[in-house]
């Protein structure tokens, strides 16, 4: 089976040790994460991890099974690229003098739908949100001019299909009573 890019969504209780528990599942199988993001979800007190990983579908199924087995995990899903809307954000810190010395750089910024978020006499910061290849394309265009700093966030994603987390939570609560 071929390795593919998968995005795993994990809905969890807000628990201090859960990050460790989830990352241990990958560690145990010697699988490197492309990225991991944790944030609040659409439901109060429910957290959402978004994990990007390149594995086979068989592997991702088993990983999701192991993640879901953790007590404080409400539900875990895996998605293929076509099932989700996803974005990453990158920040580029560039020397301000380049803006004036290298006129081409302004076109690069304009054409890539990037934003300039701050400008100081010494440096300016460009923000680019998009798919990995778009961010990467801008990186390659800016790199020859010299980057003072570059950072890219983990992937965040929403699915095209419904997740039904509220219903899942309700079904747990009903059974518990």
């Amino acid at each position, binding site marked *: 089976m071929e390795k593919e890019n998968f995005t795993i969504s994990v809905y969890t209780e807000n628990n201090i*040790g859960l990050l*460790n528990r989830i990352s241990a599942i990958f560690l145990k199988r010697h699988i490197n994460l492309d990225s991991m993001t944790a944030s609040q979800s659409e439901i109060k007190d429910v957290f959402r991890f978004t994990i990007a990983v390149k594995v086979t579908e068989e592997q991702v199924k088993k990983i999701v099974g192991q993640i879901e087995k953790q*007590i*404080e995990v409400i539900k875990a899903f895996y998605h293929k690229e076509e099932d989700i809307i996803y974005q990453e954000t990158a920040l580029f810190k560039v020397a301000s003098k380049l803006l004036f010395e290298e006129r081409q750089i302004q076109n690069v910024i304009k054409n890539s739908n990037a934003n300039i978020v701050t400008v100081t006499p010494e440096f300016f910061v460009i923000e680019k949100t998009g798919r990995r290849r778009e961010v990467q394309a801008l990186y390659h265009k800016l790199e020859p001019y010299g980057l003072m700093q570059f950072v890219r966030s983990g992937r965040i994603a929403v699915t095209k299909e419904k997740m039904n987390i509220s219903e899942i939570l309700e079904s747990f609560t009903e059974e*518990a*009573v």
Partner: protein
Amino acid sequence: METQTQTIEKKITVETKRMTGAEAVIRCLLAEGVDLIYGYPGGAIMPVYDELYKFRDQLHHVLTRHEQGATHAAQGYARTSGKVGVAIATSGPGATNFVTGIADAQIDSTPMVCITGQVGSHLLGSDAFQETDIIGISTPITKWNHQVTKAEDIPAVLAKAFYIAKSGRPGPVLVDITKDAQFGELDFAYEKCKGVRSYKPVPDTDPKSIDAASKLINEAKKPMIVFGQGVILGEAEEELKNFVEKSGIPSAWTILGLSALPTAHPLNVGMVGMHGNYGPNKLTNECDLLLAIGMRFDDRVTGNLETYAKQAKIIHFEIDPAEVDKNVKADVAVMGNVKNTLSQILPLVQSRSHNAWLQKFKEYDVIEYDKVIKEELYPSKDGLSMGEVLRGINEETRGNAIIVSDVGQHQMIACRYAQFTTSKSNVTSGGLGTMGFALPAAIGAKMGAPQREVVAIIGDGGYQMTIQELGTIFQTRVPVKIVVLNNDFLGMVRQWQQLFFDKRYASTEMVNPNFVTIAKGYHIEARRVTEREHLQDAIAEMIASTEPYFLEVCVEKENNVFPMIPTGASVSDIRLA
């Protein structure tokens, strides 16, 4: 007799609900029906020990000689009683010494609650004396763990701990309590946990899967069952027996499934796996339907997965969704507790007998008996065999004993040859293969089933890994029977060295002490047997004793355990020599 102070203290604690976290720990345990715990005191858990002293008439604490021993004893207790085992220790080294037992309980699905003390919460993260991140350390080997830093959280966390440990697929849980939470005060009220929002212990059974499974069962011409510990954990022994008898399907077991069905049952065809029986291993690759009941297709069971039961349809009766399709793809997965799913399927299966098919197992039995079993049970050589010791124990106990085995050759011999009439009788470290498990586990096993005979079968290697627990036996006088099968080798490793490493016996030969003298040092009656003529008499003396008893049997040094499926080979490539 109760002293006056004890009586007064009792009154006070019943009347007031304001109490320390340490007292709340004890009250939680009592509310969960715990009357026995295993542990070892130390700085960060002293407030709880102080309460244990006050409650000593209600909650019995067994002082093991090492924290690892406390976990294995709790495991042994859980395995024979069906209740949750409880172990308690201090922070730092006390907690890290729990690790092996917790990992063992996790992989063997044993319900256990471990309580560890922790440094005061203001010291967390400061590398304080005896501080260790036991939550971080135990995360991958616990079903759940939690650190308590406030006294008021203790009741709810412990209630949740017991619920999680016992429900669904059981497992170990660790609760780490900071010292300030033990000293702190709370208004105590205990409510048992009835559910956790994000946790579904038993998955729903899809009625379609029951129908699909029964159809496959009724159509099958050469069906075979492999049952595991799920039957015992689900208390489904009766349901299994009814199902086996009605369907007439030959039934084999995994090492942890052993004793769920009496070994003498006519449809019990023996053990699968690396050192299992010839017939069930060979016929795994001939059956047309394999019913996996409460087992997880461990690699020691399946051998090479590429050639495992490829010709067969697979029905997997399983409580843990993560186990389905993990190692072996199931054609039908029947989710749920096997107690329920087996009773649901029973009326749908036809009453059958598969005599011709069963006969195939018997034919392989004859081959295995001639090539392996006969010599193991009735050796022609002068040297004693491990098998004949087991035969002797079977004769004296009539298959009614609990056998606790360690890890290695003697374990395989014990599981292959011990006879069992009753469930929850085989206690061994299956998944983790923890040498040193048996001696402390036997202590717990006996305390979990005090009316039953408990015989620990241990090798000379594993025995010395937890030999200090003789002190626990001495102090508690728990009447366990200890049999050390001594071949002066780490026998299983030596066997592999012989077979796969051209007899290069690297560090497997043991220069052993006088085990009888050591046992006697602990005032345990002890005997050593080197010759066949004294063996049965010694076993009889041991079983007749109402006290702890130590029996060392010096067995043939370089015997091998057969049959054997070499690592990575197919189950049908099982070797008889």
